[in-house]
């Protein structure tokens, strides 16, 4: 590779030797695409015809009045096809996969959004597709698994380690070191070895480019603060990249505070003090690890943020102070989501609801002339089981019991499932 992808001390490419030529090829394809204006135009055309770009910005009038402070605007990445910003990265990598002449794509997925997006891209471009997903996540995100399989993808539940996102990434790499000749690994976030962090951030920058233009043309000014949730960091990088040169815009990344501070209780690598710098999964960043360098279990109500590492680009912005990092707890997140549903009729994903929760904490203390912009990175239809559990909705419980009884009765007559 020409470059190593460092952002001060973070990043790099700590890859097994077998993948060196594969990364050379990927870097070359990425750099060539990046310097080719026709590629970006092709990408924007694809996203405006296959997905719903440009996604709008919605003024949340009721939330603004309710909280009584800053004016709240929402960037609607939930309106992408497949319901999240993940489509931006995936379709971009799909175009690169075609350019590299590969016929198969693999991906890891946490919540399942990236898996669904990748399966969708594979169906559209005619690629074979295998998705690695932690067994814990397969269990809690069945609706996404259902759609991936409907689209023809093979979903492999990963039982190793903590059976969540990091283990799915390891397993995808194990596939890749075997099948690199015809396979592209469409990594889902701005993490992993170079060129993934900056390549994914580049595809996601479409969010920030649009958002900046929309704020200027519709409100005549930039927001004072922008909020994005941070798992791996791709939606945050996407939104932030539109405002990096605007000193007057404060960038706020919101991580999963889970059950609060203390190792194992959360997935906040930058907002809390539990993470230290390390090297795993091919890159150097802050990881939630013990003093020996073993990765620790993480917790979040949202599968998509439940990850031990974080984008090396954001780790650098943390150290330079260019982005402020906060954490929202599971309870705050569920409450923020409910409030948004009730006041605006919008259904932010649990991941995205972290950004809402932090914005709601800060908005009342800001002036009425101030503006904040929240990235609604995805929608929560997929989270219906988790959300219904979290708010313990009795009618939902009754529905599931009834449905289960119907399935059991049918299984009994068919002599199938016991």
């Amino acid at each position, binding site marked *: 590779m020409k470059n190593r992808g460092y952002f001060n001390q973070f990043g790099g490419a*700590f*890859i*097994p030797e077998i993948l060196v030529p594969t990364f050379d090829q990927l870097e070359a394809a990425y750099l060539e695409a990046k310097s080719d204006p026709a590629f970006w135009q092709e990408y924007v055309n694809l996203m405006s015809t296959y997905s719903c770009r440009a996604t709008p910005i919605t003024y949340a009038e009721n939330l603004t009045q309710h909280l009584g402070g800053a004016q709240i605007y929402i960037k609607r990445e939930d309106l992408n096809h497949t319901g999240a910003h993940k489509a931006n990265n995936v379709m971009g990598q799909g175009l690169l996969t075609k350019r590299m002449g590969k016929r198969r794509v693999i991906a890891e997925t946490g919540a399942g959004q990236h898996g669904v997006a990748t399966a969708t891209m594979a169906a559209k471009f005619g690629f074979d597709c295998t998705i690695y997903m932690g067994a814990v996540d397969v269990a809690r995100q069945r609706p996404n698994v259902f759609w991936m399989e409907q689209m023809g993808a093979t979903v492999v539940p990963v039982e190793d380690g903590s059976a969540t996102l*990091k283990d799915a990434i390891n397993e995808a*790499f194990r596939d890749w070191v075997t099948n690199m000749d015809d396979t592209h690994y469409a990594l889902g976030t701005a993490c992993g070895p170079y060129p993934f962090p900056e390549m994914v951030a580049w595809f996601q920058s479409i969010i920030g480019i649009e958002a900046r233009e929309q704020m200027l043309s519709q409100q005549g000014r930039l927001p004072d603060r922008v909020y994005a949730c941070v798992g791996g960091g791709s939606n945050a990088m996407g939104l932030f990249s539109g405002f990096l040169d605007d000193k007057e815009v404060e960038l706020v990344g919101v991580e999963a505070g889970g059950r609060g501070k203390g190792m194992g209780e959360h997935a906040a690598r930058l907002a809390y003090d539990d993470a230290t710098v390390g*090297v795993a999964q091919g890159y150097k960043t802050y990881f939630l690890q013990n003093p*020996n*360098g073993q*990765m620790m279990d993480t917790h979040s109500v949202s599968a998509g943020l439940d990850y031990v590492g974080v984008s090396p680009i954001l780790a650098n912005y943390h150290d330079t102070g260019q982005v402020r990092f906060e954490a929202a707890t599971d309870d705050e997140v569920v409450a923020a989501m409910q409030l948004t549903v009730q006041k605006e009729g919008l259904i932010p994903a649990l991941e995205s609801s972290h950004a809402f929760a932090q914005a709601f904490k800060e908005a009342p203390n800001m002036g009425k002339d101030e503006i904040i912009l929240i990235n609604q990175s995805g929608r929560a239809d997929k989270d219906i089981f988790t959300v219904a559990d979290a708010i313990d909705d009795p009618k939902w419980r009754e529905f599931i019991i009834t449905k289960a009884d119907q399935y059991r009765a049918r299984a009994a007559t068919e002599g199938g499932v016991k």
Partner: protein
Amino acid sequence: MLEQYIQDRLQHKELLLMTHIVLGYPSYDKSMYLVESMVEAGVDLMELQIPFSEPMADGPVILKANAEALKAGATLEKSLEMAEKITANFDIPFLFMTYYNILFKHGVSDFVSKMHDIGIKGAIIPDLPPEEASEYLQAMQQHKLDPVHIFTPNSSLERKQELNKHTSGFMYTVARKGVTGKDTQFGDELGDYLVECRQATDLPLALGFGVKSKADFDFIRGKADVAIIGSEAIRVMEDQGVEAVGPFIHSIIN
């Protein structure tokens, strides 16, 4: 240094054997027993793997061994203690195999210095390409330890030559794509690949990934200098108990 040791041994036999264990799997006591039975059975070198929670380059057998060792309480401190006991008790060279974060979190230079102090002769770090390894390579050189790198079927001649510049002791050549412990086709293609590897380095060649039987061992003779058995010994131990490992190694060599 390892190269001289290997050349000396090759005067007496055509093919050496390197085996591998995961320290602390299934326990540190059993690790000691495994080393003892492997050395008695006649292995020439051994890799001691320090467990890591994210062993990206390893297949299911060694992946599970890493996870179980950590679950059973393996730590870096205990692994270093055990390695020190091993090198004190057995008269063959031992290398560390582990992932870069283990060195990085401890402090790379200090880790290498400790390796030297406890009698470890070299190291294989599969997620540390030379481009990221300046501190490690410098410390290894300072302590006269051998950094071993990996040739793969995907490595160009240019890449092999670059790796060769940063390697001493021997070159680890993987027999195929993929992770440790899966099947390998021992045939003409592999023979051709080893000829290419030979052209890129003067160092002894060690061949690993998928070596599991006497037939494989016999195939490698005359093509490489060292055969490496990793996952298969762990599999034998899991299926037949620790007592079966010595006889398994013996049956391969003889």
